[in-house]
């Protein structure tokens, strides 16, 4: 009797472990349209309204808990933000001046200011975050907008602060967004002041540390510089992201690391741990299309 129970228990364990390993192996080697991924997408379609409802229902609880946590570091944050405000105030004054100069220069070279494109050109669609990966790797979030809202694979996703990631899976009412901290993510980026370009990749396990690699060897990048998306540079290989979207600031630019590996560390502007709403740019190549149209005229 006892032997039978032991055998049954071990058989069930072996079966479950075997099933897990089979799923893992099959899923890992499967193509994008494979049956397991199709089942997952189907499940996402079913679950997304439930997740949406649960997310809304639990929002007060979530906000309350976050509010308690926030209260503890509010003082530190206030003084830090005051310092930032002072710096930004100076930058705004400088930027306003630059905008005026820019407008004057554009008029001088006969550029049509009316064709100047802003974010609204990319037809942003706002979505609520309804689920996120609980792991330390902060790789995906699920939003409540999908193909019925014009969302498709590989479209850029932003929040109020900057680039968040790109859409990697879509159903009619939901989309999975792979964050820029995912190990598969690589964003062609530019240090704004120097116009030095590189590829922004993750240092996995830390959502506040990205690596801007493949910079020019003698790049003079400094801490505090702003990193933005490079955007489309080649007609053959379009970047997924429009140019000029803010990504983050350089937090560490070690000359030795820069010489050896041509890379600096970047902290994203977006707080990837606390995303409530994001925007999906449903026409990320609108500017390219517009400029191509202007060029042919």
């Amino acid at each position: 009797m006892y032997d039978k129970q032991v055998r049954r228990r071990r058989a069930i364990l072996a079966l479950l472990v075997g099933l897990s390993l089979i799923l893992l192996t099959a899923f890992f080697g499967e193509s994008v349209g494979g049956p397991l991924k199709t089942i997952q997408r189907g499940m996402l379609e079913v679950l997304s309204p439930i997740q949406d409802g649960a997310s809304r229902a639990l929002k007060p609880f979530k906000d309350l808990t976050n509010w308690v946590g926030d209260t503890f570091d509010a003082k530190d944050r206030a003084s830090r933000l005051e310092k930032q405000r002072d710096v930004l105030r100076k930058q705004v004054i400088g930027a306003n001046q630059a905008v005026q100069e820019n407008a004057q220069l554009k008029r001088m070279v006969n550029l049509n200011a009316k064709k100047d494109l802003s974010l609204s050109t990319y037809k942003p669609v706002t979505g609520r975050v309804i689920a996120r990966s609980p792991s330390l790797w902060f790789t995906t979030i699920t939003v409540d907008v999908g193909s019925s809202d014009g969302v498709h694979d590989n479209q850029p996703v932003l929040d109020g602060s900057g680039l968040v990631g790109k859409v990697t899976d879509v159903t009619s009412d939901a989309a999975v967004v792979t964050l820029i901290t995912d190990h598969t993510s690589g964003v062609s980026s530019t240090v704004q002041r120097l116009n030095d370009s590189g590829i922004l990749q993750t240092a996995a396990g830390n959502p506040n540390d990205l690596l801007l690699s493949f910079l020019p060897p003698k790049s003079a990048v400094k801490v505090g510089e702003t990193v933005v998306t490079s955007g489309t540079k080649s007609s053959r290989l379009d970047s997924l992201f429009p140019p000029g979207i803010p990504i983050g600031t350089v937090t560490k630019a070690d000359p030795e690391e820069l010489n050896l590996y041509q890379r600096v560390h970047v902290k994203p502007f977006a707080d990837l741990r606390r995303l409530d709403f994001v925007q999906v740019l449903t026409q990320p190549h609108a500017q390219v299309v517009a400029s191509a149209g202007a060029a042919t005229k």
Partner: protein
Amino acid sequence: MNASPTINVSLIVRLVLLGIVAVLVQITAISQISLLGVSADLTPLIVASVGLLAGSIPGAIMGFGMGLFVDTALVQTLGVDSLLLTGIGYGAGRLHEVRDPSHTLVPIAVGAAATAISQIGFSLIQFLLGVDAPVSWLLLREILFTIAVNTVIALPVYALVRRLVAGALPEDPRRRRARRAASVTGGLSPLSQSASPRRRRRGLRAT
């Protein structure tokens, strides 16, 4: 060593509902609440609690089911969470069957161990699957902080799971045997039986 209790329909229904609600709460709310810079992870705690209460087979099946649901709901690599949570549920269940620990702090220790296995195991599998990442101090810190946060909430989670599934748990054979033996002997020594208040009252009335 006692046998694992049999699984009844009521227990299955409760465990399925518990699993679905727990995963939904985890991915829609708990994952977005930051404590000490990390988020709590309910899944290993719930699976370990089920294992501790219901035994190794329900624990392993619950772990597999919850893991599969998490992987499916988050559209991530299928099988990773199932594998880890199956092990956690089975391990906690075996602890219940072999040792039957009754100390109040056992769920805390088991919760901490389950979280450690889940977090470290998940990171190891990610590395094995080819994630090119350094084992940074920050990653270790995050793992330790998650274990700390989960350790704090392990006891309330266990109490909640026990409250939800207690009514459907089949009776433990060892405890049933002990109670039967107690009913035969009266559960108390002959001396204390004779001195019990009810008997004393009866005795007084008779006189």
